[in-house]
């Protein structure tokens, strides 16, 4: 086994570590703690956070890439180890090879037969045209009629193991957090549901395709799960690119005023006057042309897809900083009029120190709100961009690519609805959780709304 570190993997782990450190430092600040306590004292906040955490966990597991060592054939008299060309992730291992069970083409959820007729041989060896049986579904069944009973039995078994896993995961949390004032029970129930569902999916997928297969015969459920990494990474990395630009320019414009302010205002007005989708599309196309003309930059296809992906995050970040910049500029303008900043000036404190100690900490709430809000918007945008053809590489699993590939299939008879359902469902849950969470974060951190609550 040989670990493979893609650029996006490195970035996402870096991001998670720095976020963890950031929150660890914030812990000491009593005001911030109180606000987070606000967010987590509602059951909805707990549930939404747990769902987001589960998605992030899947994305992280799916970012631990490696290439399997191949068994050398006996005849090859060498000690050298060869590696599989396919890059797998820890998540692939955990799902028990769900992605390795390919069919020939479409098949419906839990189907035993393929969706399209083919020339096959019947029991007596004659050529007939009929639906061929699937390769990886219901092989163990003696008769097709046993399917329903078999699914129930397998589900019960999976549920048993799922509940056992839940008990193992939740019991230690319960022991530690029993006396906590926060509604942890809501989180535990969510964890229980997610874990049981996960165990059920992995267990059943050995015998059936839960969400059927797509045109290429790939398992739709597996693809939807693979889309999680793309969605989560895009949502976080693009914001990560945007933050430093927006914060630096916004704070500088609001603090130094004068010509700095003029330049920054000019920059963001110009940028925001260009229709966003055109700017993104043009940039992505240009990068595409560049890659096409320099094909020897990347060794493996996955690296090329990864480079395109990072470029997309970069482009989304660079084209979307104007809103946050405007907000931060306005807030900094307000803050730099306040007494304590004036006092710091009078004492001869340097600009960089004032910015670092007095201004920046007071715009953190805006950054935080934007981060959470933008996350869901970016996940949704990915699907649209992939539809337009300027999204992530088709070889990289994403919800946008799934939707794009399946949208014309609704007009078939009978309808092929499962690919769209899978992609939309997993996307909806993530975006809903992020939106609900961002509402709570905004309520807790936005001084305007917290004032209004104090009035009421």
């Amino acid at each position, binding site marked *: 086994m040989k670990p493979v570190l893609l650029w996006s993997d490195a970035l996402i782990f870096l991001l998670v570590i720095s976020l963890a450190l950031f929150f660890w430092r914030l812990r000491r600040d009593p005001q911030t703690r109180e606000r987070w306590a606000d967010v987590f004292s509602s059951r909805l906040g707990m549930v939404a956070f747990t769902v987001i955490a589960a998605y992030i966990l899947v994305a992280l597991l799916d970012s631990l890439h490696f290439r399997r060592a191949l068994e050398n054939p006996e005849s090859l008299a060498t000690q050298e180890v060869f590696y599989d060309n396919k890059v797998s992730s820890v998540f692939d291992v955990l799902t028990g090879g769900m992605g390795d069970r390919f069919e020939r083409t479409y098949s419906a959820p839990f189907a035993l037969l393929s969706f399209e007729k083919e020339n096959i041989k019947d029991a007596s060896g004659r050529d007939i045209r009929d639906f061929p049986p699937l390769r990886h579904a219901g092989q163990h069944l003696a008769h097709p009629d046993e399917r329903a009973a078999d699914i129930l039995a397998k589900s019960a078994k999976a549920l048993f193991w799922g509940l056992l896993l839940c008990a193992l995961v939740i019991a230690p949390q319960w022991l530690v957090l029993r006396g906590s004032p926060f509604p942890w029970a809501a989180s535990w129930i969510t964890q229980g549901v997610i874990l049981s569902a996960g165990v059920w999916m992995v267990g059943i997928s050995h015998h059936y395709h839960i969400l059927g297969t797509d045109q290429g015969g790939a398992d739709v459920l597996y693809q939807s799960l693979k889309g999680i990494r793309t969605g989560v990474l895009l949502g976080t990395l693009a914001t990560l690119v945007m933050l430093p630009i927006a914060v630096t320019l916004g704070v500088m414009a609001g603090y130094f005023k004068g010509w700095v302010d003029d330049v920054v205002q*000019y*920059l963001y*007005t*110009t*940028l*925001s*006057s*260009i*229709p966003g*989708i*055109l*700017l993104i*599309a*043009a*940039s992505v*196309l*240009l990068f595409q*042309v*560049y890659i*096409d*003309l320099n094909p020897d930059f990347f060794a493996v296809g996955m690296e090329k897809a990864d480079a395109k992906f990072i470029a997309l995050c970069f482009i989304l970040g660079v084209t979307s900083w104007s809103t946050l910049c405007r907000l931060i500029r306005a807030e900094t303008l307000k803050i730099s009029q306040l007494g304590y900043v004036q006092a710091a000036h009078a004492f001869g404190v340097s600009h960089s120190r004032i910015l670092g100690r007095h201004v920046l900490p007071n715009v953190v709430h805006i950054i935080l709100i934007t981060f959470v809000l933008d996350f*869901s918007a970016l996940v*949704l945008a990915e*699907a*649209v961009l992939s*539809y*337009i*053809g*300027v999204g992530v590489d088709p070889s990289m699993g994403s919800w946008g690519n799934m*939707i794009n590939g399946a*949208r014309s299939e*609704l*007009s078939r008879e009978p*309808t092929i609805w499962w690919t*769209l359902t899978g992609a*939309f469902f997993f*996307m*909806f849950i993530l*975006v*809903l959780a*992020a*939106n*609900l969470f961002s*509402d709570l974060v905004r309520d807790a951190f936005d001084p305007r709304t917290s004032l*209004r609550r104090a*009035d009421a």
Partner: protein
Amino acid sequence: MFAYIVRRLIYAIPILVGVNLLTFTLFFVVNSPDDMAASQLGDKYVTPEAIENWKQKNGYDKPLFLNPQAAGVGQVTDTIFFDKSVRLFAFDFGRSESGRDITTDVATRMWPSLAVALPTFLVGIGVNICVALMVVMFRGTRLDRGAVFVFVALMSISYLFYIIGGQFLVAKTWRLVPISGFHTEGQVWKFLILPVLVGVVAGIGAGARWYRTLFLEEANQDYVRTARAKGCSELSILFRHILPNALIPILTGVVVLIPSLFMGSLLIESFFGIPGLGSYMLDAINSQDFAIVRSMVFIGSILYIVGLLLTDISYTWADPRVRLS
């Protein structure tokens, strides 16, 4: 007022120059004419002569910014930047890579875009305000909280889902209207009704939620308390006091969007086969026709700037306390 508008229009020039420089840098410096020629010709036919030919045919065989060989003004005007970018200011968009006149294309394709976008915009605002008003009537109750949750859920659904779902349900299952297409004569409404419906429904979540916050902000004002104290009924407070006052931020918030309606919607138009500017852009992106993309970027920026100007003017119109100077 007139002086203000003129000044704002003059301020718009540096912004448009900036937009132009930015797109020019993107299209000609990052991606040089040689690269463009190579990708347009296709890998097989790339020879130095072919590239030169292509560049000459499409007018890319000049220097980028400054032409030292030309005389006088020609030093500046006989360049790619002048040819391709400065001419946009005179609304001379030139020809697309496939040889069609972009100005005529834009002028004809603008109307189908508008035919979809304008009803969507107006009906959308009406529906959102009604929904938000109904929710505000029950403010502070379980119904209100439930409605906010529904709004957030509606917002979380991908736009693509609304389109695909709408086509599947209304056009395919119920067979009420054609799935897609467009006609200029006869029953145009048949083709418009579904795109408009989808656009309105997709906007309810975000729109109604925003209007609800605006209404609630007004509902906490002192004049509402006064009205209640003097014995107004809740209904008359809502319609006679809160609604007119909340219309000001609503108006100023949506005015900026009006000019952009001309641009149409990329997704709606491509799914419903409406020959507007949205699908024009999408086709240009797919066929990598940078001449069209460049022109559309320019038009889009102009419309945005006009929108900002209209917003400022609408402030004075809606709120007599605001004066432009």
